[in-house]
């Protein structure tokens, strides 16, 4: 009797062990199931590179190039801000900060990771957006730049914590060797620690950018949501994620618009899959 009970429990444990694989596959299958239907009415190149996103005109125009460029612009802007800040802060916390302030700084950054994105979006709307409007004398502060700044901020906890881990895991002997040769602390960081931790730092940067691409609420609230091809970072844009969040509520189940939003979901899923698998490879290379 006990044998049977344990047998059942152990099988249950195995099944649950496989649950994460099951769910990843299930998510992908359901995105495909709904999203692929859009390609009955539009070809893949027309979908990816079409310049017009007018999903409710008749016939609907479902080119997501403006959305891809919107996401790209916001992401590049966020990366340009968050990579130097995040890696810099990781170096400071891992190497330079005195033990006491180290804990405070780490707690502060963990706190940032815990703040819900809708709260950050709200704060961005009432603080950042008016600033951007006034500083650049724009008709509206809801721009790609505002989105980039807020997303950069949101990506830093990921970058800092993983880059800091990478710096910690460099063997102490490297550092001691550099000191013994007369290098200053900064020379040691710059010439020895950073190169040794480079693959971990690269993974940190990739995961941070992955977070930026997938972020939805804050970006929807502060980038202005206009689906046109942007030619400046001071214009409103609409990202892939914000398009899904803003339009799915109105799309009729089974319409082309509905299928197209799922197809955007496939694009996002594939991007995040690629980012995570590559980052994982870099992290494992280190070990």
């Amino acid at each position, binding site marked *: 009797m006990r044998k049977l009970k344990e047998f059942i429990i152990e099988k249950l*444990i195995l099944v649950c062990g496989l649950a994460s694989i099951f769910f990843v596959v299930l998510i992908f299958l359901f995105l495909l199931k709904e999203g692929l239907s859009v390609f009955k009415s539009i070809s893949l190149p027309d979908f990816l590179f079409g310049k017009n996103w007018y999903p409710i005109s008749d016939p609907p125009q479902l080119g997501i190039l403006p959305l891809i460029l919107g996401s790209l612009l916001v992401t590049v802007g966020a990366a340009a801000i968050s990579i130097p800040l995040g890696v810099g802060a990781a170096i400071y916390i891992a190497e330079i900060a005195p033990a006491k302030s180290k804990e405070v700084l780490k707690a502060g950054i963990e*706190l940032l990771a815990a703040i819900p994105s809708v709260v950050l979006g709200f704060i961005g709307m009432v603080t950042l957006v008016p600033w951007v409007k006034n500083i650049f004398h724009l008709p509206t502060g809801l721009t790609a730049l505002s989105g980039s700044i807020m997303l950069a901020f949101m990506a830093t906890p990921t970058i*800092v914590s993983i880059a800091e881990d990478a710096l910690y895991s460099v063997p102490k002997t490297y550092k001691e060797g550099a000191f013994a040769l007369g290098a200053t602390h*900064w020379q040691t960081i710059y010439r020895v620690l950073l190169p040794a931790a480079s693959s971990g730092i690269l993974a940190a940067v990739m995961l941070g950018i992955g977070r930026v691409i997938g972020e939805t609420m804050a970006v929807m609230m502060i980038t202005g949501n206009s689906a046109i091809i942007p030619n400046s970072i001071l214009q409103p844009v609409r990202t892939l994620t914000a398009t899904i*969040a803003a339009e799915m509520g109105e799309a009729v189940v089974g319409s082309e618009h509905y299928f197209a939003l799922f197809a955007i979901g496939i694009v996002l899923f594939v991007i995040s899959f690629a980012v*995570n*698998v590559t980052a994982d490879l870099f992290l494992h290379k280190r070990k």
Partner: protein
Amino acid sequence: MRNSRRSEKIAFFFLFLATLLIVVPVGLIIAIIIQKGLPAINWQFLSDMPRSGMRAGGILPAIVGTIYLVGGAILFALPIGLLAAIYLSEYSRDNLLTRMIKLAIVNLAGVPSVVYGLFGLALFVVFCKFGASILSGSLTLGIMILPLIITSSREALESVPDSFREVSLSLGASKWQTIRHIVLPNAVPGILTGTILGLGRAAGETAPILFTVAAFYLPQLPKSLFDQAMALPYHLYVISTQVPNVDEKIRYGTALVLLFLVLFMNLVAIIIRYHFRKKKKW
């Protein structure tokens, strides 16, 4: 030598500046929300229905909805996540399957939250015909926090020393008895920490509940698993972008309640972790 000292000073100054540029705004954001939100908080705000098109009254249905959703998510995710963690920590070998499970967990954690929303819509709302309901929303949130629960529970289980297991096995206990009576009790604090962090994460997410459960406005509290519900993060989104002329106080007040809920859970998790790390006997 003097030059390299000077460049070290400059470099360290910039690194310090980068850190400040991240940490100071965090403090400012929290300070602003507390300062502007606190005047809105009173018993009526927390216990009343919204009135006048959500421009007055309280946020009770949003609080209740969030509690239901978070509770449902954890009921779903904790058993599966815990058993998955037991598999990874106690049963799995270092082979291709384990590698794939770990990769799947990493990917599940990286899927954008709005894609979870799409998935929940396609699977639970449309395919399973649960409709936009607390059930659909809870299941979607549950799958979203699964990787967090698995990862933290696994760490907790793996930190139990092997000698504990060896003693138990040498006394004639079976593998499951060892896990049940020796490994699990010693891993409870770590599992609890992860669970609470999962609660906080589920409470704050908006995108996964957009199309699976969230209601713009409901005049009464949800009565069954198949009802729609309001939720705090979605309510904050609605009153700050969809409804014009909402008093700033109500927006900040809602933001404060949500922030407090999430940060409070994080604080509890940190305290549990700290407390048990001190008490640890090994």
